[in-house]
């Protein structure tokens, strides 16, 4: 338990460091979200930059990003369904720290809160807050720490949170099946290959695994689309409609579309994306579990187990499984990164909505907030998975569990 807490603390520190790294590198890179072919007029640009806190110093921007300094009215009726920012009614009186008084005159009013680096920026004072409450305004805080990633910079009416909320499940819908596919197929394959080391079965398993690893998603995706979605359908059409003369089928639809090549819908729509991403993962998992199992099989304790007269399946499941699964488990951390890079290609190839697509869009548009949002989500996924892997590790390996005493 103490170990879990300690690991959790480490996780938090890593998240903050990583956040800062991504935040500063993207802003230091040339170009910005508003540098289009036709840049907006200077006045609008100035407003835009202020709107996104980009007129602040870098540390102040980061602070604002984390703890949310800006508030703005989202919808005039105050429902503020999607708003995580605090809502200020029109004409609210805002007093800044400098002593001047502002009146919010348009929808895009923003109020800045105290920030240690830019003292002059001001804050919502108690009086203003009370007034807001009087007007029945919903007051909400914002910032990444409260789970608010802000507004997209390229599409200014859409929240990054909404992008993520729509994109993440879409990605998980094929990422999790492909991971399961790779694990449930790859681990037994690796074990079997190790058990039959240097025999034809071993060779076949390694070849299948290598094939999956070596052929990039970029090639695999169109290949499978061509084979399954195009050729197979053409074959079925030929078989059922032209040869067996199932006229009814021909009348209803031109092809069976058994394994579709894209878009979302039924389960079948996820077959090809899962296969493409899954085979990419498969090779690594076969190799890792094979290596792990081989090492365990060669170990002295497996020799002891054999000397006890245990049958092969007991040896494999009880004595080999745990040590052999550990390398695979370690790989489950980096696997998130693999799925991310895979998703970039797969979502394009199979016209799937998902984080990968948004990631590319965010990068090309210099959409800082969206890029941060997607990065943070993936970062959290990687860190969380690593955290789970670490906990599983301690559960699997008693030598870590009791804290030391390795032999």
């Amino acid at each position, binding site marked *: 338990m103490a170990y879990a807490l300690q690991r959790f603390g480490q996780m938090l520190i890593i998240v903050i460091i990583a956040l800062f790294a991504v935040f500063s590198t993207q802003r230091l890179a040339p170009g910005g979200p508003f540098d289009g072919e036709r840049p907006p007029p200077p006045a609008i640009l100035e407003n835009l930059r202020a709107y996104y806190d980009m007129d602040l110093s870098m540390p102040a921007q980061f602070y604002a990003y984390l703890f949310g300094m800006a508030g703005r009215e989202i919808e005039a009726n105050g429902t503020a369904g999607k708003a995580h920012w605090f809502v200020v009614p029109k004409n609210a009186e805002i007093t800044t720290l400098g002593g001047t008084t502002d009146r919010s005159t348009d929808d895009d009013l923003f109020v800045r809160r105290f920030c240690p680096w830019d003292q002059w920026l001001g804050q919502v004072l108690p009086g203003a807050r009370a007034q807001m409450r009087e007007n029945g305004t919903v007051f909400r805080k914002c910032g990444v720490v409260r789970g608010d990633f802000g507004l997209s910079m390229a599409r200014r009416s859409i929240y990054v949170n909404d992008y993520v909320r729509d994109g993440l499940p879409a990605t998980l819908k094929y990422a999790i099946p492909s991971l399961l596919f790779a694990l449930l197929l790859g681990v037994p394959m690796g074990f079997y290959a190790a058990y039959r*080391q*240097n025999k034809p079965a071993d060779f076949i398993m390694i070849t299948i695994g290598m094939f999956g690893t070596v052929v990039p998603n970029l090639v695999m995706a169109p290949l499978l689309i061509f084979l399954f979605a195009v050729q197979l359908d053409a074959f079925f059409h030929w078989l059922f409609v032209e040869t067996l003369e199932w006229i009814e089928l021909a009348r209803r639809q031109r092809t069976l579309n058994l394994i579709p090549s894209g878009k979302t819908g039924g389960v079948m729509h996820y077959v090809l994306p899962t296969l493409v991403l899954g085979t990419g993962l498969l090779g690594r998992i076969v190799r890792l579990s094979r290596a792990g199992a081989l090492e365990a099989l060669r*170990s*002295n*304790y*497996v*020799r*002891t*187990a*054999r*000397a*006890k*007269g*245990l*049958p*092969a399946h*007991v040896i494999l499941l*009880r*004595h080999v499984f*745990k*040590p052999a699964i550990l390398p695979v488990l370690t790989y489950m951390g980096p696997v998130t990164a693999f799925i991310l890079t895979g998703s970039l290609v797969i979502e394009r190839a199979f016209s799937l909505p998902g984080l990968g697509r948004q990631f590319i869009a965010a990068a090309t548009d210099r959409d800082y907030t969206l890029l941060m949002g997607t990065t943070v989500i993936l970062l959290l996924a990687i860190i969380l998975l690593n955290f789970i892997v670490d906990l599983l590790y301690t559960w*699997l*390996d*008693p*030598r870590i569990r*009791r804290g030391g*005493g*390795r*032999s």
Partner: protein
Amino acid sequence: MSAPRTPLLSIKDLHIEFDTPDGTVKAVNGINIDLFKGEVLGIVGESGSGKSQSWMATLGLLAENASTSGAVLFDDHNLLNLPTRDLNPIRGNRIAMVFQDPMTSLNPYLTVETQMIEALRIHQKDMSKPAARQRCIQMLDRVAIPDADRRLKQFPHELSGGMRQRVMIALALLNDPEILIADEPTTALDVTIQAEILDILLALQPERGMAVVFITHALGVVAEICSRVCVMYAGQLAEVGPVEDVFTDARHPYTLSLLKATPRAAQDTTEQSNEALYAIPGAPPNMRMPPQGCPFEPRCACANSECSQENPKLEPLDDAPERLKACFRQQSSAELTEALNHGR
């Protein structure tokens, strides 16, 4: 010796070869060993003499790249070509083995309890878990492990080396085997623990009437606990016989050299000398290309031309038929020692 007894297990003309990328290693070249009920048989030899491998072969524990010929007869079975399915009821049940390295021979991922109980229940299918547990505790008590109940729940890394080897011995003895093969069980342990382990083995052996094969390169240990000894060199038997006879009146130059190379504390002050410890000159032959003649010939002080031409067979001594040796030299022990000293 009394009338010829039937051996419990007999190794007949056993050959073991390992296929390696650099060629075939002929680890064991035609050895014959009979093991009788209730005896403690010592197997001594240098590292790489095939002493461990020949007994690994009896339990089918050789590496994947090994191939064997000959026979290991046990209870009308030839263990060498018995399929694993038929070998398993014998392994750990009628023939058990204790390995050299207690640090790695227990599975670090499983508790002592799991590893002991599985050994019991695989052979005694109707034994309940509590009964098996009880038996394990009993067995741990027998090998002098205090607080057995708690130890059972622990993982191997929580036990010391000596403790682990005792667990290994308890594990091997759980099913009351007829034969216990102890493959250098004390090599990895320090001297005081070695003595304890030997005491435990010595105490348990007569009480169970089992035959023990004790593989070691410590001649002192053999002298202490064994009744018969086989001296192995380069995958062959050099000399076989009762321990006292072989050690006091060795007839094979290799046995003599081994004995001479044993460090010992000076018996009295007058004997104290600054003489360096004797070492057999040269190195064992490369077993990828075993020599045509006697494998010990290049290092032997007593060899002549005959020795390099032909490999001597293991034959009974003229004056002591229960003893065997593989050497053309028919001199007495004293004469051979003389030659040895002179040759140096």
